[in-house]
């Protein structure tokens, strides 16, 4: 079943239109990757889906129109985002960051259980449970950001360049966590990246984004097979 469907999505900042009518979709249980260079519009797409920008066109989630929905309604509907640059709350403790992620939930018991769960998955966060998030390293903050997004038990997880500024080892660790969640729990993911290598291995499907338009889409195998695409966009 189609989880997220965007048709003719346009968005921008003031007089500058970045997205020029995108069509994309994410099926339930898919791990979709969007690749694109700097300035292609990846972050704009993420922000548009989460309702942080005003957008034109049409976005549907689980069949419900969310084109005009407010950011908090979109979170309640089941979409959570790990924004670019971590987006942690630096003055709040690790634990408070996680509590904030669960803001839309009313079940205190479940929230406590989930906090315990994510601290187990990311032991480094457990060690720093009461520390201010701003004092964590880049990798730890990224883990925190992912855990925070997952605290709302989303149906669709949006990830905006999680590897940015991180050492390769950490990045691999993160990706394996995401892959694990996708495989074991059927979490649907839409992930945008500049780094093609890592993402291609996990992706069910890939979109290529260039200056606000989708220029190619297909499975990772299909795109790798096409020589011109491979050389121009995937760099190998």
């Amino acid at each position: 079943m189609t989880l997220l469907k965007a048709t003719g999505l346009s968005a921008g900042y003031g007089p500058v239109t970045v997205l020029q009518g995108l069509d994309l979709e994410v099926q339930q249980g898919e791990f979709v990757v969007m690749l694109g260079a700097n300035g292609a519009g990846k972050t704009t797409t993420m922000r548009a889906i989460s309702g942080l920008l005003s957008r034109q066109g049409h976005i549907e989630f689980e069949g419900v129109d969310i084109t005009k929905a407010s950011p908090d309604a979109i979170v309640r509907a089941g979409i959570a985002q790990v924004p670019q640059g971590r987006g942690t709350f630096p003055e709040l403790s690790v634990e408070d960051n996680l509590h904030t992620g669960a803001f839309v939930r009313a079940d205190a018991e479940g929230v406590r259980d989930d906090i315990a769960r994510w601290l187990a998955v990311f032991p480094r966060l457990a060690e720093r449970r009461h520390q201010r998030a701003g004092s964590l390293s880049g990798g730890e903050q990224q883990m925190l950001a992912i855990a925070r997004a997952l605290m709302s038990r989303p149906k669709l997880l949006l990830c905006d360049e999680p590897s940015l500024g991180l050492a390769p080892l950490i990045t691999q660790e993160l990706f394996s966590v995401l892959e694990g969640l996708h495989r074991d729990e059927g979490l649907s993911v839409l992930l945008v990246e500049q780094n093609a290598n890592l993402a291609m291995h996990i992706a069910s499907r890939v979109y290529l984004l260039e200056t606000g338009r989708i220029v190619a889409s297909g499975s990772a195998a299909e795109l790798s097979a096409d020589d011109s695409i491979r050389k121009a966009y995937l760099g190998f």
Partner: protein
Amino acid sequence: MALFFQRLVDGLSYGSVYALIALGLVIVYRGTGHLNFAQGEMALFCAYFVYQFGEWGIPIWPAMLLGMGVGFLLGSATEVTLIRPIARRSPFAVFIVTIGLFTFLNWLDGAIWGNQQLPNSGVGSEQLTYPSLFPNDPQDQWLPFGVSIRYERVGILVLVLVLTGLLFLLFNKTKFGLSMRAVASNSESAKLSGIRTNRVLMMSWGLAAAIGALGGVVQAGLNGNVNLGLMFTVFIYGSAAATLGGFDSPGGAVIGGLLIGVIENLASGYAPQWVGQEMKLGVAFIVILAVLLVKPSGLFGTAKVERV
């Protein structure tokens, strides 16, 4: 020695009012990043209302709570109608709007209640003096070791400390408090967590104004009357307190307020030639300047690294 104690206690009670104004300033600043220049005048407006409630026979404590309610409405309405639409343009425009609000509220007070001090029998006031929250008769005091500790002064201090405690609980133990802290820390991530940031901003302003209203009522009670100029200097002292404590630290605001109250009172008491009554504001000015030059983030604030 007794005199020192006396001055200390008096300083703490005046400082309590500064602390209240500073708290309001800090809550708004933390939540929205703006300095509410009209904080003092909002407080004054509510203090006038409480006078009016008194004229209608309402006892002071209920009247004060009603006044805080008026403040809450005023603050939240201001945020929604005036600040939010303008904040998109520039911080300077917001600043100008708060200056305009400052002038408007002061004018409105005069327009509604006139420019003499109230209560005033010449105007037909029912009350003799502005009501105080605590027993205020000349004999309502303890007299240990020759020091006069008036019930009123202690009461105010206790009230402010209790309020501070309640706010601490609100910020740290409630979901709403968490949302306030989250919005103050990273408003976009707060949105991504499902927090309705607009609502949080509105409530921040409302809360700040309500606290300010309490400050206005207390100040008027200490002063014996409410008049148009009541909150000018208090606003400056409150700003000095917020600067000293750190504009993003509510606890710092309270400590800053009490400190400044004490410093100011001790300075004017012990150096009447140099400070006296005339130059009390000079103390506030020096404090603001010194803090901003030495440690701009204040005693308890967090230093912000400016990213270019």
